[in-house]
């Protein structure tokens, strides 16, 4: 963090960090760790499995450390720093294995890459690990595009999809560009825009239960613009947004649904048509 400040005194007036330089991507590694995320673990496990399959298809061996749980984001965004730090510390110890860590969720990857620094500010020992993890963390679509440099044959039938990107991931890591690039590689997939595409779906973690009125209005607008987009379905690389959007669509008795990007991609490239396990 030292580059953020002109002088390191605790009272120094802060300036905005330098604009991030474009990330340098490594060559495709033989082995990676998958951090599944707690939401995928419990609610969208198939998406996690599809992420593993996609990586294996690229000839990469995937490790899934059994002791992983949550990145700590819910407590962090709720202001419970000590609790978030304890959980983050556990993941850090676990994931610090010298392997790339692939995360099928933009906001959790962003937690590793951006917010762990704030969480452990002042703890030099931990910050060293944080920097290593930050270097090694890749959001799934980013990893597929820039590290695996995938080149796929689309085995699915023609379809139109709308893409939704988690706001923090979009702003912290440009994940919308990576996901677009992946979708654009699929010859039978037409990507359609939806109204106010870059606007938040209203999830925001605990925001959705602390401010249900506002969050509800946001997700209603989001789902309605998705339905009106003419897409056959929505895809997203973020479990939180997916839970929010699908839960709202279901409540509104809309037939339209969203799907995790990993599952959508696996279906297109494997030719397997899977029914969602309800």
């Amino acid at each position, binding site marked *: 963090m030292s580059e953020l400040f*002109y*002088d390191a*005194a*605790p*009272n*120094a*007036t802060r*300036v905005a960090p330098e604009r991030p330089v474009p990330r340098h991507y490594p060559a495709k590694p033989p082995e990676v760790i998958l951090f599944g995320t707690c939401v995928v673990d419990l609610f969208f496990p198939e998406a996690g499995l599809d992420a593993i399959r996609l990586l294996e298809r690229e000839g990469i061996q995937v490790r899934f450390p059994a002791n992983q749980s949550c990145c700590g984001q819910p407590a962090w965004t709720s202001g419970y720093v000590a609790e978030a730090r304890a959980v983050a510390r556990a993941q850090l110890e676990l994931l610090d294995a010298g392997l790339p860590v692939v995360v099928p969720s933009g906001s959790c990857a962003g937690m590793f890459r951006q917010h762990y620094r704030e969480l452990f500010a002042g703890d030099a020992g931990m910050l060293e690990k944080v920097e290593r993890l930050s270097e090694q963390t890749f959001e799934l679509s980013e990893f597929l595009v820039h590290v695996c440099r995938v080149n796929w044959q689309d085995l699915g039938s023609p379809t139109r999809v709308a893409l939704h990107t988690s706001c923090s991931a979009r702003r912290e890591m440009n994940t919308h560009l990576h996901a677009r690039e992946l979708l654009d590689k699929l010859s039978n997939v037409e990507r359609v825009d939806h109204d106010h595409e870059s606007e938040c779906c209203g999830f925001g973690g605990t925001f959705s239960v602390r401010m249900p009125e506002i969050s509800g209005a946001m997700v209603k607008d989001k789902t309605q613009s998705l339905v009106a987009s003419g897409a056959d379905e929505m895809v997203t690389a973020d479990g939180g947004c997916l839970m929010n959007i699908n839960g709202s669509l279901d409540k509104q008795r809309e037939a339209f649904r969203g799907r995790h990007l990993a599952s959508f991609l696996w279906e297109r490239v494997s030719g397997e048509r899977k029914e969602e396990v309800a």
Partner: protein
Amino acid sequence: MSARSNILNKLRAGLAGATPRPDDFDERLVTEPWQYPPEERIARLQNLMEAVQTEVHSVRGEDWPETVAGLLARRNLNNLLYAPETGHGTQLGDYWRSTEQAIELLAYDRPVEDWKDTLFWSVDASITGTVGGIAATGSLVLWPDRHEPRLMSLLPPLHIALLRASQIEDNLYTMMQRHNWSSGLPTNALLISGPSKTADIEQVLAYGAHGPKELVVLVIEDE
């Protein structure tokens, strides 16, 4: 303890141990995107000002009083507020007398308090000089003074401004540097970039909010 010392002390305590940040002002960021070849400056200023409902005319140095008379006649106006002690005021006065214009010339030659009612309600138009223009934003620069007071460019529904083409600068930064603004500013310096306007109701743009409803710029070709 006074409010002043309390505030300053708290601020100083907040800065304890820290050093002031250096002045790393990068002037390229405010100049390079806003540079134009001389022949494009007038066009840019004109385009930007016309986009905000300003009338811009190019005139020759000796002809502009005639243009002014024409502008006023077309609008059926009764009077024109001017500054007789300025160079352009003298030129206008001479033209008015020699051509026996019917439109009354009002000289701003006494304190506002002496004729507030007239100034606020009965002046149809005014004419002022400018100290220059800014191509980047389509702006006029005015430095009102004893001879050409502040309210001249504000109260009348029509404001006519004279702008010398040679005094149009690329951007505000260049204007400030060229005329060394930081070494001394007048009581009131103004940038004017169109007639007064508001979009406070439903974002509908309406001209003539509190200041002039119309702004006419006469660009005097002098180079």
